Every structure is written in structure tokens, then in C-alpha cells.
């Protein structure tokens, strides 16, 4: 769970994410990124993979390299199957999928196998790791739907056919 109102934009989560995975560390990349904006004071929004229930990245992957791991409620990239066509990068509505130019494959948040490094280092408590079963799902779904509707009215696009479900 991400609470942007608590985030102070220190960037520790980005560093921890990059350090947590040896392949990402080599490329200096992180799965979580903090977006910063200047309206009504400073606003910081950490953005990362939402672990969609029906991931558009998975449905677009021509090699079937992205699948959903229901045990940990996450979406995973099979690095041995990924060929680096970047279709998933363009398909993700959140821009959470990223491309590692050194290894030539896509990478995304894998929740650090259930123990996210970003959550451990967040001093402002803006990040929290919650098991999917502990959440009030209908309420989250409703709230995410509203958020998405607003978002798409803003950019002048249609509402997409899938509803994002935040499952962690």
C-alpha cells in the first residue's frame, strides 16, 4: 500500500530496490520510482507495479513470459522467456514496467518474494506491505475505479476495459 501524503521524497526506496536485486543493481535501476510535482506545495508519489489481477502486460506478452503468481499475489516476469520486445513496457497503464538495457529484458516489482526492501527502508511509513486477504477488497476496487475514472477524464481518454485491482 502506498500513501503519497506521507512520502517525503527521500528516495531511499529507489536505492533499496536497486540494491535488493543483483541484476538491477548492475544497471542502477529500480522498480519503484518517486514522481514529484509542484502544486499546492510539494507532492511526491511513489509509483510501482500494482500487481493487477488481469495484467495487461501479461496478456500482451508474445512469449507468455509474464504470469500471475497467486501464492504471493504478484505478477512475475520469467527472465528466461523474456526476449526484450518491450510490448509490456508500452502496455502497462501505470508505467510500472521497465526495461533493463544491459540484460535486454523487462523487469518489474516482484515484491521481493514477500519481503519488500522498499518497505523496510521507508522512514516516513509511506509504504506498507499488506497481505491481499487482509484488505477490504470491494472498497479498494471501488476506490481504484473512481481514481481511474478521474485520471482518464483528465487525460481526455476513454476509460479502459479493465479495472485495476490493487491486490497488495
Amino acid at each position, binding site marked *: 500500500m502506498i500513501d503519497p501524503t506521507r512520502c517525503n521524497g527521500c528516495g531511499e526506496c529507489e536505492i533499496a530496490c536497486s540494491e535488493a536485486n543483483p541484476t538491477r543493481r548492475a544497471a542502477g535501476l529500480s522498480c519503484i520510482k*518517486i514522481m514529484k510535482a509542484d502544486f499546492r506545495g510539494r507532492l511526491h508519489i511513489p509509483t510501482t507495479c500494482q500487481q493487477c489481477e488481469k495484467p495487461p502486460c501479461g496478456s500482451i506478452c508474445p512469449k507468455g513470459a509474464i504470469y500471475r503468481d497467486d501464492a504471493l499475489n504478484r505478477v512475475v516476469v520469467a527472465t528466461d522467456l523474456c526476449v526484450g520486445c518491450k*510490448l509490456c513496457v508500452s502496455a502497462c497503464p*501505470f508505467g510500472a514496467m521497465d526495461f533493463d538495457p544491459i540484460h535486454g529484458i523487462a523487469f518489474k516489482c516482484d515484491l521481493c518474494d514477500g519481503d519488500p526492501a522498499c518497505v523496510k527502508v521507508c522512514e516516513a511509513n509511506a509504504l506498507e506491505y499488506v497481505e491481499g486477504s487482509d484488505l477490504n477488497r470491494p472498497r479498494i476496487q471501488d476506490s481504484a475505479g473512481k481514481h481511474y475514472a478521474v*485520471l482518464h477524464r483528465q487525460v481526455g481518454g476513454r476509460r479502459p476495459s479493465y479495472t485495476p485491482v490493487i491486490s497488495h
Partner: protein
Amino acid sequence: MSFFKVNFNCNGCLACVHNCPSSALTFKDKDNRRTLLHNMSLCARCGNCWRVCPQDAIQFEGILDGQWQEVTSMDLVACKICGEPLYTVNYQDTLNQKIKNGGEALCPLHRKTLSLEAWAHFAGDTTPQRRAKT
């Protein structure tokens, strides 16, 4: 005649370029056109490009010949905000075919900033900045 050929399925995703073990493939983005190049004198004939191609677009034909040769070229689509070349027109078609409403042509960075706009809306700011600072 070139040994390496691509058919109309090619969408310029560059998976073959990233996966070529002998760097015999490269690309050039110039004037809104993406050009795919192949060098027969570097090619190891391993067939890895053919194996990884998500579009089954690669064919082998003819006999070996000289230096860097143009294989194919196609138009590029740029990010709506920053103008960074994103992908080719054929690639966009593939996106739109596979998922309904393939989305706007935005680079990953500017796609992330969409959430900023939603927050701007909640904060009552009617003219959110489409600007990212990282």
C-alpha cells in the same frame, strides 16, 4: 542479396537486436524512421534472432554479402509529451490489437506522471502540470 530478411510482420520491437550474440544487428532512429540493419560478416548464423522474434517475422534467404545492409525501415511514434521516439507504427498496431484501447503514446516516465494529474484533480487544481521531475 541479403541473407537476413524480415517479412511484413516485423514491428520494429528490436528483440532480435538485443538478443544477437554477435552484434550483427543494429538499428538507427533518424527523422522519425527506424531502420533495421544487418551485417553479414558479423553474423554467426546461430538463428537466435529467428528463435526470439515475437512476430515470426524473420526469414533467411539468398547468400551472404558485404557490410551493414538495410533490412527494413518503418515510421516511429513519439511520446506525446517529451517527443522521445517510442516505437514504430506497426508496433502500435500490435498493441492496439492485443489490448483494447492500447493507451496513449507515452514514454514510461510520462505514463507514471498520470497519477500526478489525478492527484492534482483531487487537490482542485484544474490545470495540472504535465511535467516530471525525477
